[in-house]
């Protein structure tokens, strides 16, 4: 255990020790924000420039900048307003900042890819959701230690504490592991802050992708932004159906449980709901839609009434329901992420990630009254233009979804989809991650697209969006962006690049050419023959015996293995829930590499090595 902690700290220090990249030519990309208790400062986390930006909301100007760790994602303000805490998702740390001087004070360890953060000021504890770890770090501020981990949902990402500090709630962006082709299951993890244990897990049935959540000041009402993927039915007739239900989960004593309510309207979808805020007087709530670039204003009295109504359980699939409680939808900037209210609730701040700006909304009038630029290059690069396209839902019929609805934060969604071009029930495919895929053509599991413009162009228009596709310069920009999506840091390699003894043994298994009895292994059954090169793929199609009767061809694109550890489930149709199952369940005849002569120890070693790729 000590080794693990030390290695983690060394890893974090090494990442922190990296030279701070030149931020002048980078886009700030505000991701999260928080308001000081006196309302005089707005603290904005900029994942693109690795900094916390302090904003004077009255002057509508930047008041200061603090360099933090890599790719910061979340910020929390201490109840007394003297300290700020920023999660550094690529450094696996939290930066503690003096709010007055805007100086970084210390760096605290967290788990794998810390994202959302909340503070229990009474007990001096930070709650940090670790996306890759799928857990919550309880960081003790006195000792500075990541003292306890509590298991949360897969892709744990956002945290909110009740005003009295007694409860902390955590959401997660990937559905929890479950049976193949079953409805996605998610949860809101409720932590008892006094006892520092998980008190309950509020089940979110048919939900995959839960984002920010907010609680009313009296603690009786909570709202979480979420999506309801309809991935078990063919993604056909988008114009007739509903590919992703953009919705909220309403919970707490006011509603007596958890009720899912839609935000979509017929022919006007509210794509990728992300940020949530509840007015201090509990009259209204606000939800941002990061795909359709707007903020919805909800009437809480009507919302609670709908949630308590006898038909509440059926409302999640009722496209007319939102008319009961959505008062207005206000256009804001591109890709609005977190939102936060001023202490009195009169002003709403919206972090428009792809505009590098904060929208200021007068909540009484429901209008945008101003904006604060966070800087960044004036000119847009092709990649940035492509990123805007990637996150926009305006190309799909009815604004239903964009690339980012399934490739959450440019990753994946942990789901398997039945894509229409293949026919109904044919070629079920697992959603693949997009990190560093530029050098891995062809694309699609059947290798049907030789390059990214083909993958992202006419195919997307015809089979996904059903409306408007990406063409010409847009298509080039989009492909450019997708190719630029970087590889996240691998948490399983030792800081010095060495392999652990188990990983070393696993590497030997990966590279072996003979079975344990000395028999030569045919080339195509040696791991490193197909999984070769810098991305661990030979860019070919291969039949590894995992095809299903419903697949048109048993030949599968050899997937890249870089960061494969993050992207469960596995195989082309996602039928292997874990790396182990690839061989323990789906390789009975040694077609997917020779593995049946391995002991359990050796298979574990192989998996430990694969985690390092």
């Amino acid at each position: 255990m000590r080794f693990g902690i030390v290695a983690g700290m060394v890893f974090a220090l090494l990442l922190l020790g990296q030279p701070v990249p030149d931020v002048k030519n980078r886009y700030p990309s505000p991701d999260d924000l928080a308001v000081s208790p006196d309302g005089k400062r707005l603290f904005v986390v900029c994942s693109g420039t690795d900094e916390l930006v302090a904003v004077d909301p009255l002057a509508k100007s930047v008041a200061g900048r603090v360099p933090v760790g890599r790719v910061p994602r979340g910020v929390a303000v201490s109840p007394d307003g003297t300290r700020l805490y920023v999660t550094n998702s690529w450094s696996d740390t939290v930066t503690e900042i003096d709010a007055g001087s805007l100086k970084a004070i210390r760096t605290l360890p967290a788990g794998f890819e810390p994202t959302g953060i909340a503070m229990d000021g009474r007990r001096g504890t930070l709650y940090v959701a670790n996306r890759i770890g799928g857990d919550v770090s309880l960081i003790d501020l006195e000792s500075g230690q990541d003292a306890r981990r509590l298991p949360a949902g897969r892709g744990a990402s956002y945290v909110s504490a009740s005003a009295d500090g007694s409860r902390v709630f955590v959401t997660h962006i990937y559905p929890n592991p479950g049976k193949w082709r079953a409805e996605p299951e998610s949860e809101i993890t409720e932590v008892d802050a006094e006892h520092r244990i998980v008190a309950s897990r509020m089940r979110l049935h048919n939900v995959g992708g839960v984002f920010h959540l907010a609680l009313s000041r009296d603690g009786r009402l909570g709202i979480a932004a979420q999506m309801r993927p309809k991935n078990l039915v063919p993604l056909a007739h988008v114009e007739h159906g509903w590919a992703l239900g953009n919705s909220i989960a309403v919970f707490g004593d006011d509603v007596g449980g958890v009720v899912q309510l839609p935000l979509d309207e017929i022919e006007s979808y509210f794509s990728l709901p992300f940020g949530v805020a509840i007015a201090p007087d509990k009259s209204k709530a606000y939800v941002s839609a990061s795909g359709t670039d707007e903020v919805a204003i909800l009437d809480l009295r009507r919302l609670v009434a709908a949630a308590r109504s006898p038909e509440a359980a059926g409302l999640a699939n009722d496209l007319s329901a939102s008319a009961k409680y959505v008062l207005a939808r206000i256009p804001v900037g591109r890709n609005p992420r977190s939102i936060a209210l001023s202490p009195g609730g009169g002003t709403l701040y919206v972090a428009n990630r792809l505009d590098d700006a904060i929208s200021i909304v007068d909540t009484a009038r429901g209008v945008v009254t101003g904006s604060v630029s966070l800087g960044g290059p004036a000119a847009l690069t092709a990649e940035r233009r492509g990123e805007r396209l990637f996150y926009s839902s305006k190309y799909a019929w009815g604004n239903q979804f964009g690339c980012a609805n399934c490739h959450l934060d440019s990753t994946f969604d942990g789901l398997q989809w039945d894509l229409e071009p293949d026919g109904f029930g044919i070629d079920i495919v697992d959603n693949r991650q997009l990190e560093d895929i530029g050098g891995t053509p062809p694309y699609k599991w059947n290798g049907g697209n030789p390059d990214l413009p083909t993958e992202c162009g006419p195919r997307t228009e015809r089979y996904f969006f059903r409306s408007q596709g990406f063409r010409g310069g847009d298509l080039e920009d989009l492909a450019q962006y997708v190719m630029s999506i970087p590889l996240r840091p691998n948490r399983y390699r030792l800081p010095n690049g060495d392999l652990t003894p188990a990983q070393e043994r696993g590497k030997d298994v990966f590279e072996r050419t003979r079975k344990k009895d000395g028999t030569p292994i045919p080339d195509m059954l040696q791991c490193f023959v197909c999984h070769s090169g810098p991305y661990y793929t030979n860019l070919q199609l291969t039949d590894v015996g995992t095809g299903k009767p419903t697949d048109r061809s048993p030949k599968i694109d050899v997937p890249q293995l870089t960061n494969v550890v993050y992207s469960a489930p596995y195989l082309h149709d996602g039928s292997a829930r874990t790396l182990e199952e690839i061989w323990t369940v789906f390789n009975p005849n040694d077609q997917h590499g020779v593995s049946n002569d391995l002991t359990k120890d050796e298979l574990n070693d192989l998996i430990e090595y694969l985690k390092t790729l």
Partner: protein
Amino acid sequence: MRHAMLATLLAASGLFAQDMPRYRWENFTTAQGLPDNRVYSVCVDGDRVWAGTDNGLALYEKGKFKVFTPADGLAHRAALSVTLDKRTHDLWISTMGGLSRYSAGRFDTFTQLNSGVANDVVYGASVLGDFVWVATAAGGSRLNTRTGEWSLYNERNTPMYEIWTYNVTAAEDKVYYAVWGGGVLEYDVKTERWKDYNDPDGETEIVLHKDEGLIHEITTSVSYVNKILWVATYFGASRYDGRNWRNFLDKDSGLPSNFLNQVKTIDGTRTWFSTDKGLAYFDGERWATYRPALDTGKPEMLVRGADGEVTHVPVDTAPAHNYTFGIDFQGDDIWVATAKGLSHGIQIKTGDSSK
């Protein structure tokens, strides 16, 4: 009146018996909602009592049982052992079909197919910090809950010559495995080295060298507190203080049987034994046995003094069955897993006339 009678009886039977804990036993069976009367394990978490049975996991709370089965996500119906992570209050349930974690209503299951655990037949688990140590029919396994890494311990990397690990206990400095047929395996947390303890007589059932080592190779349970190791075997019990061994047999101690399913020490001295002939307690000098009498089936409490004299303490209640699998503590009370039900021993305080 009853109090006076009890005092008289105790006086007649030896005052020493008064000091041994006495209980009023409440027994629970399928009639009260247990999913099965064969209760392999019991685990107390505050006011909640968990029981691993042959047909599911049961939670006793506020006077009612709630049952969890594979339909709820439990790895297998036969829940052999239930372990509490005292930090998170998550449960680790060892079953005949894998290891399950129960956390606030959610089961996560680890099997030999979907994870790195050595084998699906899981007998026990013990939590030490962020590590979960697991005893399986194919050796020991350790899960690092922060990284997800599994480490396996078997004949290839430890002195274990028999891989059937039956029980594990982890404390801050040591981890002990009871290896069924292979003695005891010790892991030093600081040095990360393994050491084995074996019966100096080999696997024979004859004790040639009493107190010179482990009593027998067929070990079933280990308990380690205050740097004192207790070992249960099918042929007696052993106590090891790091220098000396002391062994206990039914013929020369108050153990009701040499066939032990579990040992659980409170402080290294005061220790409980689950045997096939009743539940036994040792306070360092004296022994007590709680059971339905072997001949009549009537409630029985026997106390054996340091001088070897055995006294019957009159009681009205007894655990549900002689065949006991394990115990756990709830304050002064005790819960017992038996072959025919779950038993709650409510301690009778001094001056209380209850029997």
